[in-house]
């Protein structure tokens, strides 16, 4: 019995996001859904999972299984059939630990308590997190959280799995693992609908491909699917003899009492664009937080020759700013307009950011027409682009970026990288980027640091 979706349309706050979406999702299907930021991919998946219209929006059309309308089913019955993995991994858990969270879901579904323990072990092993049962969710990395979320969806026994950009914060190896897992689940009889901005790794696994155009999600003929890209290595264009900004010696970083990084020596020089990669949970974000003074670490750490923990924060943050992984953490006003005006007033490069230049960038990033919108009602991609715009307009000498491309479609990624290149070249800003999406970054960066066994290693190439 397929999940039948007929002429589904969705509008939110009087704005139509998509219309006339129809699909018959059957056992064994593995469907990829692609579209630009803000086109309504998340809303579509939430509608299919019965979250909307319960939590807002208006729908017309229907989605049903075996003739039962999903929107009319009780949540505990629906969850046994349709599982949803949310875009933001930090906002989908109720409890503190992995075990408590999984028990919560099993309790909702009235599963026999005697079977719970076994089921929890089973799904954790399935996603490769066998030893995560007692771990605190608040201490897991974005990628680890997504794996836990996938395990939780599998736990419900739902045969229709809806995944909303599940790999935005997952490293390449884990992405390939999880895509393989999804493909094997489809072969076992699960039906999978996944939205993503990046088709990498899907094309030899999916059974159907839907793309967004002119307000509709339409199926794309197999002949017109994007071509599979060949793996290659891009050599780094290194810069020499630059003054040292950050000088780190014998630095030890811990999180959740786990030893993450021990770096004997590392220098970051001015004007460089450094890419930081490594497996999920290896400590990349923690490293940026240490440089941004949001996390403490042991060892000698200087900025411009002075111990940066002794700088007044106010002065330090005039030099070093950070683009947070979670966009909402960056905003301090309500509307888009207020946010942009605030950074223009405080910018360290007021002369550079003229009205004309700011308007042009807003337009390039696809943020025009949103000035009166609350930043909290923007789509994930729009929030990310606005967040980046704010920080480049501030234009501090050093900008640390934690997953700046997560949740962005390829056109947005191009626009964002063009903007970063422009400010780096024109304003001589030093960029330090943690990203799992390296394809388009590879040819732009001057340095590639990978975290291997708790230590940064300088690489000559970036594999894409």
């Amino acid at each position, binding site marked *: 019995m397929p999940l039948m979706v007929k002429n589904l349309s969705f509008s939110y706050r009087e704005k139509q996001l998509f219309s006339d979406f129809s699909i018959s999702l059957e056992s064994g299907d593995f469907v990829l859904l692609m579209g630009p930021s803000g086109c309504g991919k998340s809303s579509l998946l939430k509608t299919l999972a019965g979250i909307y219209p319960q939590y807002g929006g208006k729908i017309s059309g229907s989605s049903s299984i075996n003739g039962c309308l999903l929107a009319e089913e009780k949540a505990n019955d629906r969850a046994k059939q349709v599982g949803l993995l949310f875009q933001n991994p930090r906002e989908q858990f109720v409890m503190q630990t992995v075990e408590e969270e999984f028990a919560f879901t099993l309790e909702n579904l009235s599963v026999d308590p005697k079977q719970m323990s076994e089921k929890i072990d089973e799904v954790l092993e399935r996603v490769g997190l066998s030893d995560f049962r007692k771990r605190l969710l608040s201490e897991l990395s974005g990628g680890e959280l997504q794996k836990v979320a996938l395990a939780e969806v599998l736990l419900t026994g739902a045969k229709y799995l809806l995944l909303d950009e599940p790999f935005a914060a997952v490293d390449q190896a884990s992405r390939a693992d999880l895509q393989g897992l999804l493909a094997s689940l489809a072969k076992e009889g699960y039906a999978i609908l996944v939205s993503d901005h990046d088709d990498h790794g899907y094309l030899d696994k999916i059974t159907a491909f839907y793309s967004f155009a002119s307000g509709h999600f339409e199926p794309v003929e197999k002949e017109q699917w994007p071509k599979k890209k060949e793996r290659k290595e891009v050599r780094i264009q290194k810069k020499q003899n630059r003054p040292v900004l950050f000088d780190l010696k014998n630095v030890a970083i811990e999180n959740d009492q786990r030893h993450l990084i021990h770096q004997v020596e590392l220098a970051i020089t001015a004007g460089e664009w450094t890419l930081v990669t490594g497996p999920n949970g290896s400590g990349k974000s923690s490293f940026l937080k240490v440089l941004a003074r949001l996390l403490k670490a042991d060892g000698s750490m200087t900025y411009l020759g002075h111990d940066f923990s002794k700088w007044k924060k106010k002065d330090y943050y005039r030099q070093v700013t950070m683009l947070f992984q979670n966009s909402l953490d960056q905003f*301090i006003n309500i509307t888009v307009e207020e946010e942009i005006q*605030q950074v223009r007033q405080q910018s360290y490069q007021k002369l550079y950011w003229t009205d004309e230049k700011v308007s042009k960038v807003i337009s390039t990033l696809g943020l025009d027409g949103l000035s009166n919108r609350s930043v909290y009602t923007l789509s994930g991609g729009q929030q990310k682009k606005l967040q980046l715009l704010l920080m480049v307009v501030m234009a501090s000498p050093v900008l640390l970026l934690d997953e700046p491309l997560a949740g962005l479609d390829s056109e947005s990624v191009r626009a964002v990288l063009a903007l970063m290149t422009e400010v780096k070249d024109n304003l001589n800003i030093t960029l330090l980027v943690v990203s799992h999406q390296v394809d388009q970054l590879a040819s732009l960066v001057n340095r590639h640091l990978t975290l291997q066994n708790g230590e940064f290693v300088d690489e000559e190439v970036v594999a894409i």
Partner: protein
Amino acid sequence: MMNASQRLFLALFLSLEIVLTNSLSFNLILLLCFNALVIYRKIAWKRYGTYWLVAIIPSFGSFWSFYLYAQGDLAMRLHTGLVMGSRVIVLIFLGAWLVNGTKEAVLLQSLQQNLHLSNTFIYGMLAALNFMPRFKQAFQNIQAASQMRGVTLRWYQPTLYFKALIQAIQWSESLAMAMTAHGFQEGAKRSAYQQYPFKKIGFYWIALIAIVSVAMSYLPY
């Protein structure tokens, strides 16, 4: 000996008795007992010291105001002041005994199972408690994000709380959606991974402690 709900009942009963009893000896015996029980829990000395620090000012204030302004002669006022002052410390250590021996999540789930409280209320409370570390992190992030944008937000400025409030509203909506997606339905039948049944021996202990404490409340002075 007692499950989490029974501990709460005992704590509530003793609290009521403490505020209705006018005996310094009674307060001192309870203070000794609960101090010993808190130390027995092997809590950090810093935390133990914090309990005394928190207790000392209201306790002294209470003693002093009754000593100065209560009715009766000097001896009566001294007695009333000491009873009132020691009462504050006993109540704090009674609370410390309760919270150090019981995880909040266990207490809430135990109350849900034993008293059939609403699941929505219980999981709402649990989610709020789980948000606490995130709140702390959020405050830190909001302050850092503001400083990175040239604005310094101090702890006393409403903007900081306004922003935190907006984030909390945002989280609560996301959380409600996640709970629904994970099968949480208000009023629906649920199973329980961990059972927290009332213990018979727990009621015997409550009865014994109640009898002894009522008898102690008649102690002289």
